[in-house]
């Protein structure tokens, strides 16, 4: 059986044409992979920014918050899927929510470290010149925190890309992870290799892209020191 499938696979015109039991096209896998992972990173950021800001305002809160987000990171995703499947069903959302929670373990410290990297005398000068709270945050703190923050975002994005593979266990929501499970099921190593290499290439490309974004957003940091 496996020989038969392998033969049929080999007879296909391109390595990117997937066997029929893979329900998505190669491009479809890339789409799921990017939408879910990067979406989760973005959602994580939306949560981590205010949370991190709160933690740097109230330093006593930070150890507890850090404890909680690290603890969440330690929860096996399978367990979270089981809990979520009753609520969100077998959907991308069921993969998306745990991934978002996992990014917090990277993004919350990233936000806090970033905000803490803003020199005290810079904030003092900003206050003394009459910046309001919100304006100071947007125009001074956030831009100066950006190099540290972007480093965390890059780690979160790449780690989400690989973590989401487990989404294959609840259906076809693991991106390239689907290929690992199907390759295992149908004894097709080619699928596993294709999935793995694709995932690595995609991760590297994502990281490069985010590095580019970082360079564009922080021209001042270029000659300062190299971040991450």
């Amino acid at each position: 059986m496996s020989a038969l499938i392998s033969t049929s696979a080999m007879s296909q015109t391109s390595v990117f044409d997937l066997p029929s039991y893979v329900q998505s096209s190669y491009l479809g896998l890339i789409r799921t992979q990017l939408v879910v992972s990067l979406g989760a990173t973005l959602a994580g950021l939306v949560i981590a920014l205010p949370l991190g800001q709160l933690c740097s305002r109230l330093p006593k809160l930070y150890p507890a918050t850090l404890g909680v987000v690290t603890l969440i990171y330690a929860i096996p995703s399978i367990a979270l899927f089981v809990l979520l499947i009753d609520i969100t069903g077998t959907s991308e959302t069921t993969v998306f929510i745990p991934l978002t929670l996992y990014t917090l373990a990277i993004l919350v410290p990233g936000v806090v470290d970033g905000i803490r990297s803003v020199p005290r005398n810079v904030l003092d000068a900003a206050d003394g010149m009459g910046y309001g709270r919100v304006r100071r945050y947007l125009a001074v703190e956030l831009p100066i925190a950006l190099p540290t923050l972007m480093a965390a975002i890059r780690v979160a994005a790449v780690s989400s890309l690989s973590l989401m593979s487990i989404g294959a266990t609840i259906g076809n929501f693991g991106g390239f992870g689907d290929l690992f499970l199907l390759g295992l099921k149908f004894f097709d190593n080619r699928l596993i290799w294709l999935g793995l290499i694709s995932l690595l290439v995609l991760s590297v490309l994502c990281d490069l892209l985010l590095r580019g974004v970082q360079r564009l957003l922080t021209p001042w940091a270029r000659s300062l020191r190299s971040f991450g």
Partner: protein
Amino acid sequence: MITFESVSKKYPDGTEAVAGLSIEAPDAAITVLVGPSGCGKTTTLRMTNRLVEPSGGRILIDGSDIRDRPVAQLRRGIGYVIQHAGLFPHRTVADNIATVPRLLGTDRRAARKRAQELMELVGLDSALADRYPHQLSGGQQQRVGVARALAADPAILLMDEPFSAVDPIVRKSLQEQFLQIQAEVGKTILFVTHDVDEAIRIGDRIAVLREGGHLAQFATPRELLERPADAFVEQFLGLDRGIRRLTFIPSTGLGLRADALVKKGVELSAAQLELPWLLLVDEPGAPIGWIEPRRPNEPPIPIGHAFIAHTDSLRAALDAAVLCPTGWAVGVDAEGRAVGVVSQEEIAAAIRAEHRDSLEAVR
């Protein structure tokens, strides 16, 4: 004018940073707050732009309570310069300087033009406009800090140890340039320093504070050196206040003798042969060195440095005299030509005469 009316600051833990301070910082003058660490000088400064709220008393600017204005408006109307400059690392020099005008709604082009004017005022090369702060030296950063504080042309400038973080040579040139800028712009300045020499050099009036935020003395630099209010102030001023006081006494009263000047190759007169030292000058009149009339062929003794006659202080004259092995100081004109010479003894007599005059004035 900034008026402090029994201003105090007590922190919740009971420490008293400022205790019932009452001083007035006059318009267009530099008022220095000086004292050891923990004397509340920085707290006092920061209460002026409400970065710290006083726990008692009032601060008035031109008669109106600073609490009557919205805090952002108050701060945008007061220039603020701090140690290490506190420049925004993510903005270029020009953008840093344009900060407050931009906050006040000036459009980008006008703000940039203003930034360029200020760079010129503080002596920064316009080529630095698009650099980032970390690409500048400490002294340059501090100049940007001053330019940024002046950008919106505030009437008041608060300066918190602005020159403390740079090396002594750069500090001296920053201080001199700062005084020149002040002569041009005439701001009402509150200046905090722990360095009493800096206070005396730049202050029009000096408030000496002691631990716990008590005012020890509020006086002009000269008064401070002549009549320190108590042992604390005296000790704080250091042991050489007698010498430093001479900075405020002009050398106009010194009788410079021109008969000790000789040009090279000119025959000495009989009277000159009686003098202990003669000053050899070159053709335009610049001093070369001291010679003994009896031994005219020995190599001349260097004069050390000269003082500018009638312009420099007695301190400069005395220093020139004590520096030179002959004990004589050379007075020169603005072009560096020797005008005459004066001995330590004559300078000492001038100092005594000045003391007598000021004693008379007190009586």
